[in-house]
């Protein structure tokens, strides 16, 4: 184990990283305390694709995203965003965190949350002008939440809260969207609204990466998958990588065979 660790630490040759990829991760290791949650993971996201990050609970899916965004600092490894270090390309990424990560009794309205997506544009001191409000409204419109602009966020249902988070990310006008379980605990209408927005982003040439739980929808929502259980298990087009064999490896036999059969898997 320690030898392997040493071999992986910083050993990733730089020349290998494809610079055109929206997100390229090499040799990434993150640990909470003494336990590695993500171990020596490589990932190459294809531009204009929709990738599902799949794996059991505690497999490091969210942590992988957070490390890519610099929210948690990795023990080893690096991530390049559009071929540049995170610092230089941060404005091209929009992040949609898990809904549960926030106190929804916070004194803020729906429109204020979306305006947070414009903070880079606004800077520290610039006033919020009609054109900013206009932009925020347009983002709310895209997720079907225009009528809720002036509501306090605590009055929203879980699905509506998720849509507001997505609207905030849209306001950033980024090129790469990283979403942490956007479909967790949302109603059917929200799921449809979100996937429609994500697909329209893809058709605009943007790149989408989402941590995803529901194996039954992988095939219809995404074109690529990234299977992880602390280590990377597989990565590739849905047809190649989303196979019973790979799923069994990822979930360590925790999926019943019946469950896998229902997924109409290839291979």
């Amino acid at each position: 184990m320690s030898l392997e660790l040493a071999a992986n630490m910083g050993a990733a040759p730089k020349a290998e990283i494809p610079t055109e990829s929206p997100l390229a991760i090499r040799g990434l290791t993150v640990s909470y305390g003494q336990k590695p949650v993500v171990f020596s993971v490589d990932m190459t996201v294809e531009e204009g694709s929709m990738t599902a990050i799949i794996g059991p609970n505690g497999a490091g899916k969210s942590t992988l995203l957070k490390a890519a965004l610099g929210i948690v600092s990795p023990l080893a490894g690096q991530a390049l965003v559009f071929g540049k270090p995170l610092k230089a390309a941060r404005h091209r990424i929009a992040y949609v965190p898990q809904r549960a990560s926030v106190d929804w009794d916070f004194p803020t309205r729906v429109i204020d949350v979306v305006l947070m997506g414009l903070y880079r544009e606004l800077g520290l001191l610039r006033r919020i002008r009609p054109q900013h409000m206009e932009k925020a409204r347009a983002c709310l419109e895209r997720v079907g939440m225009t009528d809720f602009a002036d509501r306090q966020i605590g009055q929203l249902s879980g699905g509506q809260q998720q849509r507001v988070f997505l609207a905030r990310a849209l306001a950033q006008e980024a090129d790469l969207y990283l979403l942490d379980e956007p479909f967790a605990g949302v109603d059917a209408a929200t799921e449809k609204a979100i996937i429609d927005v994500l697909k329209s982003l893809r058709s605009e040439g943007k790149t989408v990466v989402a941590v995803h739980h529901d194996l039954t929808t992988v095939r219809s929502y995404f074109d690529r998958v990234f299977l992880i259980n602390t280590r990377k298990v597989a990565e590739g087009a849905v047809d190649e990588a989303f196979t019973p064999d790979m799923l069994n490896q990822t979930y360590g036999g925790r999926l019943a065979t019946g469950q896998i059969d229902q997924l109409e898997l290839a291979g």
Partner: protein
Amino acid sequence: MFWTALTLQLGYNATLVTIGATLLGIAAGVTGTFLYLRKRALVSDAISHATLPGVGIAFMLMVMLGGDGRALPGLLLGAAVSSWIGLLCVSWLTRFTRLSEDAAIGAVLSVFFGFGIVLLTVIQTMGAGRAAGLEGFLLGSTAGMLFNDALVIAGGGALTLLAVLILRRPMTLLAFDPEYAASRGVNVGRMDLAIMALALAVTVIGLKVVGLILIVAMLIIPPVTARFWTERTDHMVLISGLCGGLAAWVGASLSAVAPAMPTGPIIVLSSFGLFILSLLLAPNRGVLAVYLRHVRFQRRVHMRQGLLALAQGQPIYEAFTVRLLKRAGLAHADGVPTDDGRARAAKALRDEKRWELVRADQAFESAAALYDGLRDIETVLTGDQISEIDQRIGGPQGVTS
């Protein structure tokens, strides 16, 4: 007399104290809002108690250097340094040990305060340079406030407000959603320290007026008060600053009228008065409003249940329901419906049927989301939509009211 104090006509010193305290109150209310929103209100308690050793050491140093041990800028500088060390201790303990923040706060607070008290005792036994003024930092003493002291407070308060103005967006972002803030490039650790540093600045400049034991109240009570009145962060900051300033102004004026009263505690009590008023009377979040809403809701539930029971010819057992129906002219005291009641009951039953269809139909999804079992269907759907549903139900048409 109180009025003369409020209108700043009670002499030079009282006026100075009132203006200084008001500025401090505004700065504390504004800064405290971010502390509260970041859920770090208690850290300010550690910060304030950690000022005491600094005050003692600064005094000793200044005496040793042959100066006046009680020069306010020097004492405040000492206070700032030692509370900054205390603050770093708290954040170091929570970050690198398994101690939770409350435990770290408790430990730092008591150790620093204890050390400070020891220093004050030592200073008293030294007998060097009258140390009498130093206990004033515990509970505040405005009796001997000088123009320069007021200037220090005013300048410090203004600088703090300026810093809040500049940092308001990253601080709001951090308080609401730290992970998202980090994804936008906000340095979470450093921004947290900035919030604390602002609280520290307020604490230090408030030492003279309110004292280190009670300064916490000026940072916490105004934002808590403001929270009752608004659902917007920007408004909350303004209201909190207003509450803080108002409480300080009233408190300082009161204590000017009754000089035996300590300024700090009076300011805190005034602030508390505003808090109680808000707690009881604020619309939406106030206790009274919540209670009234509950009562109204309960009535709607009983009314609805009563009508449905009438419609289905079931007996009503709850006296309260019967009373409500009777008061509305829908039923007699024995629970037998009036003509009006019979019509309303039929409508209620029909609404139930309509709702059933609405909720089963994907096309009405947004309307169905509003279903609570109580609402009249015409508050959610248009007349056309209702007749469309009625057609699906069949039976007699046009029962709308």
